[in-house]
């Protein structure tokens, strides 16, 4: 039987002590075996940023690619071999700045992967610059007079794009986070989980304390109610909801493909060309 130990990587995480990323890493290592998914059938694809170093620290097939580009890689891995469990992992700068167009279109395509964003509302690896989810007024190396750009709301964006599973977790509540990630992986289609994951070194505003005072567990009456999901996604301030906001069942992109919808591309026969294949040119 597959266990958490099977997912233990050989490289020690290089994140700062108490970094939110530890919670996401252990959540994956706990949840994947609970679902009976084996390390060799797991692919973790990431972009670039502190959080994106995660594939180095988990024993699975890891792909540590380019800033903002985890989703196209992850999509194609899944399309190539639907038997694999594919997790895309990255940060808010990676996903909501450089990777925005991929986020939108991957959600719309309902690619059957799980996209977990470690959202610390700052660029950490590059030592502290404002990110798309930094709050207005937030001071950083690049916004010394305070951030003046409107804050991205990844949840409403994901919903508007057509994600069929939208949730928010908090690194400071690992049990709850594990449950959300488990449901996200089980969901057939594109699951998007934004995890509020404090950067203990560079973000002195959105700390564990900041979230502990504000988060509450949201329980949707009807997970398929888009308007309700959108409304709760907009809530931010004194009270910050965490939980699964939206889930609906829909066909994923590959199911509708005239070729890949009928058979796994890995197993589909390679066509042998013959004179008949070029008859149209005669």
């Amino acid at each position, binding site marked *: 039987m597959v266990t958490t130990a099977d997912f233990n990587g050989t490289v020690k995480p290089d994140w700062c002590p108490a970094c939110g990323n530890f919670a996401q890493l252990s959540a994956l290592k706990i949840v994947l075996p609970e679902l009976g998914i084996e390390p060799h059938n797991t692919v973790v694809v990431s972009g670039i940023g502190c959080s994106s170093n995660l594939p180095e620290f988990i024993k699975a097939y890891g792909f540590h690619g380019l800033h903002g580009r985890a989703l196209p890689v992850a999509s194609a891995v899944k399309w190539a071999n639907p038997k694999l469990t594919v997790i895309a992992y990255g940060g808010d700068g990676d996903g909501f700045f450089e990777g925005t167009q991929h986020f939108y279109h991957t959600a719309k395509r309902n690619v059957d992967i799980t996209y977990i964003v470690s959202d610390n509302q700052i660029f950490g690896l590059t030592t502290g610059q404002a990110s798309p989810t930094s709050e207005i007024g937030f001071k950083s190396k690049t916004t010394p007079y305070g951030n003046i750009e409107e804050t991205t709301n990844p949840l409403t964006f994901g919903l508007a794009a057509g994600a069929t599973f939208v949730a928010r977790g908090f690194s400071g509540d690992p049990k709850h986070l594990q449950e959300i990630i488990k449901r996200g992986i089980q969901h057939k289609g594109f699951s998007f989980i934004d995890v509020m994951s404090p950067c203990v070194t560079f973000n002195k505003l959105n700390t564990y304390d900041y979230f502990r005072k504000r988060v509450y567990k949201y329980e949707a009456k009807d997970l398929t109610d888009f308007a309700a999901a959108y409304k709760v996604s907009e809530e931010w301030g004194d009270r910050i909801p965490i939980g699964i906001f939206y889930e609906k069942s829909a066909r994923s992109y590959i199911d509708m493909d005239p070729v890949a919808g009928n058979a796994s591309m890995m197993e589909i026969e390679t066509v042998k060309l013959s004179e008949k294949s*070029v008859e149209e040119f005669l």
Partner: protein
Amino acid sequence: MTSEEVIVRIGGAAGEGVQSAGSVVAKSFSRTGLYAMTYNYYQDIVRGGQSWYQVRASHNKVRNQGDGLDVLIALNIDALVRHTNPEINEGGASPLNGIAIFDTALTGFQKYDNIQYCAVPLAEIAGRHSKVSLVKNTVAIGAAMASIGMPFDVVGDVIRDTFGGKGDVAEQNVSAAKEGFEYFNDHFKKLDKKLKFNSNKKYLLGGGEAIGLGAVNGGLKMYIGYPMTPASSALHYISSHAKDFNLFVKVPEDEISAINMAIGANYAGLRAMTGSSGGGFSLMVEALGMAGMLEIPLVVYEAQRSGPSTGLPTKTEQGDLNLVLGASQGDFPRIVLAPRNVYDTFLLTREAMNLAEKYQTPVIVMSDLYLAEHLETVDKFDFNFKIDHGLRAQDNAKNFKRYEYTANGISPRAIPGQAGLMHNEDSDEHSETGDVVSDAETDPKLRIAIMDKRMRKLDTYVKEMPPTDTYMLGDADYAIVQWGSTQGVVEEAVDILRSRGIKAGAVEVNRVFPLNPDIGKLLKNRKKIIVVESNYTGQFNRLLRSEFLVTTSLVKKYDGEAFYPGALAEELEQEIKR
């Protein structure tokens, strides 16, 4: 031009059916046992402007669009003036010396003695067969085919196929063409040509289709592209045959996504490819280097058009070599191939699929608008090809190291889903096990070891390269070096020079990087080495000089049009005599 070949040109505005008329003419030749090649001169507009389509056909292999013009179909007055007036130079194309076919309504133009003016009531005849005005083109095709003595049945069948079989539309077009054919025979004199038509059909296809066929023959399963002229001809062919060839085809949000998807699929063990023109390729640059770093097989089709920037979207050039050679930061092994004709495109694309997987690195197949969009006859396809998936680790292999330091630089791959081979593939510099070496501690020795290992793959490839092709080079005083699509025109220019007693020969490069060291020997003891290419700075010329430390001169063209054999021979002769 010999009496055993003919050049037909159709001139008109975009939207007047120039291209479809041209392909009917071309197919009529390829179906009657002749070699043929087409050239499409068009602008970046959907309606209006001036475009033309030329077909050259011969008993002998047709290597380029050719000099001379025997038959002109002028679909409007502008086309009639433009292609008969010796003063107007359409990027090097010859004015008419032969038969002009046009509607009787066109009047008031200057006439030349070397032209037989054949006014045919095209619209009037068309009106008797159909209400569709474009049917007048079909009438003109009938007249043109009569002028060169082609049997009507062949033309009729091609028209029938073009218009989708035996329906009313097809038959209306066939009967309209027949009346045009008979009208010509009743009123005018045929061209003095000795063309013999037979029933040995040849294949007629373009470089874009050859990319698709080569890739599929090479085991393609997934094509991810983004529309951009002239790479779209491959995308269209592949898309329309997805079901026939068991392909997953996708146009995603941008070229960055396209290449990352192709990399993801190849990582997962599925042969995938992406393609674009220079603009799209520019967006792919960062990911190209990632494929090199992660050692993931990747074939990228790069179809050049005139740059810089959006450039001349419908015109040809070989101006992307520096881009392709230098694409992405740092050094990593890459293989660059540049097919020289349609069949070579087929062969090299399928080979690229194997090379990418064998050497686990990006392979770029460079074409250009000229090659991607013209049609060319092919006698026969040899589909016999063995797919080589390269070095793969067995499940649960002991001591598996994804980037193991090997003598030839090639390390065993593991595909997600394989038991016991889990590892990380990282765009950060890494050790032979895939662990990142840049974060916690940087190790200069390790960096050298892994860098050397990756780059060794190129040394291995160079040893396995086939010899470079040559043409009439044996006793040549003058070596003309070409790369990619200029092969055919350079060969004909060499023939012209030889006919003038100048001992010229050609070195025909389709493996552009790394260059085969045998080229150095081929260039030895020549009186002059002249590089021919279509770009401003002589990008290949610089590469050749730096690789072989030779003195060369350059004959270049960057007006957006292809080289023509006569003009090229003149330029080469001047260069030789300089």
